[in-house]
């Protein structure tokens, strides 16, 4: 029998999911359910919106109001849902390509508006659904089917991109660090305003195989070894941080008004006016 978490928050008849063996996405999807469970949210008032790609298949498995949209546009659809009905807890599930390439414009503008949407980016550094093309987060020098001689693009830091664009909460964790990940997602959902959690995932099938990263376990171990918490990093000497990635909370601003609250004030002021 499935665990209580699965019984409570997933559409059991839609499982198992379509993701490859060893894919990190399941861990991240679970972390979202853990966060929702911890917050005790009313499932009827949660709306999960996704775009297109491997991660964007997650909402189909999750027992909420779920909306699987077009490639890159999840945040634009979600903005409409949230603005039209601010009572809904709107969570966007998106991938690195979906969020920061084709959907990059929507990402920065949703962040700028500080609209109360929580975005979880499943970042596996590759276009998985289409078979392993380099994405805006594929590290420079790595291989993809469309970067056969090594990727010459610099990569995006999605959490910092969102923070710079105006998100009032931005954090990063990994599929290995599942507990802090769930904690950040929990904070992000309860945050008033636009929040984003970048969840570093693993793609052993395409990214891993192409770049000789080893097995799924080895890839998760790499996350364990290479990611350093931002608070720990502050105390470490520079040489200890060579080749390391930083995770943790990058921004948490609570004194900026949320978009739909501001709009509610306009309605309050103008309602019934001629």
């Amino acid at each position, binding site marked *: 029998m499935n665990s209580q978490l699965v019984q409570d928050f997933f559409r059991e008849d839609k499982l198992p999911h379509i993701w490859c063996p060893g894919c990190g996405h399941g861990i991240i999807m679970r972390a979202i359910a853990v966060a929702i469970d911890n917050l005790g949210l009313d*499932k009827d008032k949660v709306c999960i919106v996704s775009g297109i790609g491997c991660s964007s298949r997650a909402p189909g498995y999750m027992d909420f*109001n779920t909306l699987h949209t077009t490639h890159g546009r999840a945040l634009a659809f979600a903005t409409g849902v*949230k603005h039209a009905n601010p009572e809904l807890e709107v969570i966007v599930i998106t991938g690195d390509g979906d969020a920061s390439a084709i959907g990059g414009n929507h990402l920065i503008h949703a962040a700028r508006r500080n609209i109360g949407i929580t975005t979880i980016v499943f970042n596996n550094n590759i276009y998985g659904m289409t078979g392993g093309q380099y994405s805006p987060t594929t590290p420079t020098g790595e291989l993809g089917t469309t970067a056969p001689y090594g990727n010459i693009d610099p990569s995006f830091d999605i959490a910092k991109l969102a923070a710079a664009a105006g998100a009032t909460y931005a954090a990063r964790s990994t599929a290995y660090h599942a507990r802090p990940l769930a904690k950040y997602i929990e904070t992000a959902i309860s945050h008033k305003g636009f929040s984003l959690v970048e969840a570093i995932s693993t793609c052993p099938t395409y990214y891993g195989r192409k770049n000789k990263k080893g097995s799924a376990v080895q890839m998760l171990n790499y996350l364990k070894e290479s990611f350093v918490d931002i608070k720990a990093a502050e105390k470490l000497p520079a040489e200890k941080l060579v080749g390391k990635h930083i995770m943790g909370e990058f921004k948490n601003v609570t004194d900026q008004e949320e978009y739909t609250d501001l709009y509610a004030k306009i309605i309050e002021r103008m309602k019934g006016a001629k």
Partner: protein
Amino acid sequence: MTQKNVKLLQGNEACVEGALYAGMTFYSGYPITPSTEIAEDSAVKLPKVGGKFIQMEDEIAGIAAAIGGSLTGAKSMTATSGPGLSLKLENIGYAAIAEVPLVIINVQRGGPSTGLPTSPAQGDIMQAKWGSHGDYPIIALSPQSVRETFELTVKAFNLAEKYRTPVILLTDEVVGHMREKIEIPAPGELEVFDRIVPEANTDYKAYRVDEGDIVPKMAPFGAGYRYHVTGLFHDETGFPSNSSENAKFMLDRMMAKIEDNREDIVLYDEFMLDDAEFVIISYGSSARTCKASVKKLRSKGIKAGLFRPITIWPSAEAQIAELGKKVNNILVAEMNLGQYCHEVQRIVKSDAEVHHIGRANGEVLTPDEIVSKVMEVL
């Protein structure tokens, strides 16, 4: 006697008045000439009725947010012009397959590309029908006046909600920007259709058509139904299905909901057609020019008449086919190089000779040149 609500309005302003009359509570869009007044007016008026306006970051987001708004139960609209319609096409297909009611106003301007931003055109006739990829149902209406812009915006909302489909209002720069006297209908004077929602959450299947219904009942997000919406082919539960049998069943149903209800959807107008021996077919602002041409031709003793499709898609197939059997010559007059003319030729076949007059340089057709064209044909 109650005071009549008479106003002097631009077509674009009348569009917003019509939308509010129909119950619009959500607007999202992106500024583009010559449609911008629709966004501006919506921004002013929606909060006054407790509705929501949002200016999105681009045209794609404009329609995407409107679809999101509609899924929460709000009557939603977006407005644009040619280049914006091109950008919205993928999500028009999404709204069609996910069966999300939505009104898209397209104030046509000269194209292609940036084209002639401040000049009228009727160049988006085919884009409105065939623009998104794949096969899907669509409804498009075209008003010729300010008053009709009001009425057809109401009608567009009614059809969108009734048939759960995107409806495009094809106006143009002339209709959008000209000012005319309009008597705003009193509440209750025009029909307003509200979407059919399920009564109770027992055995709810988001895409199942119940006995006696045209479309599946649509629950708003947040009302306790927790269903799935996707642009993938889906079965009656709403969840994706790869079955080709299911895809055929769902697409056939979606096409049939429009096809089987042409009588309700297809609107048209006739002018001096009864004894006509020469028929002009024209729509939108061009049809007004043609009306003057018909009068001029009649004064010359030529029995001309005008057929004006108000519903552009689905086309007035039966009516046009009938005209083709009645007369030898049909002239299609439009501000493009022959888009609706193709449709008329397709319908009429060899029953009558179909001629065309049109241009796409930003100039409206004049009554005299249409008269000359008719004389040339005869």
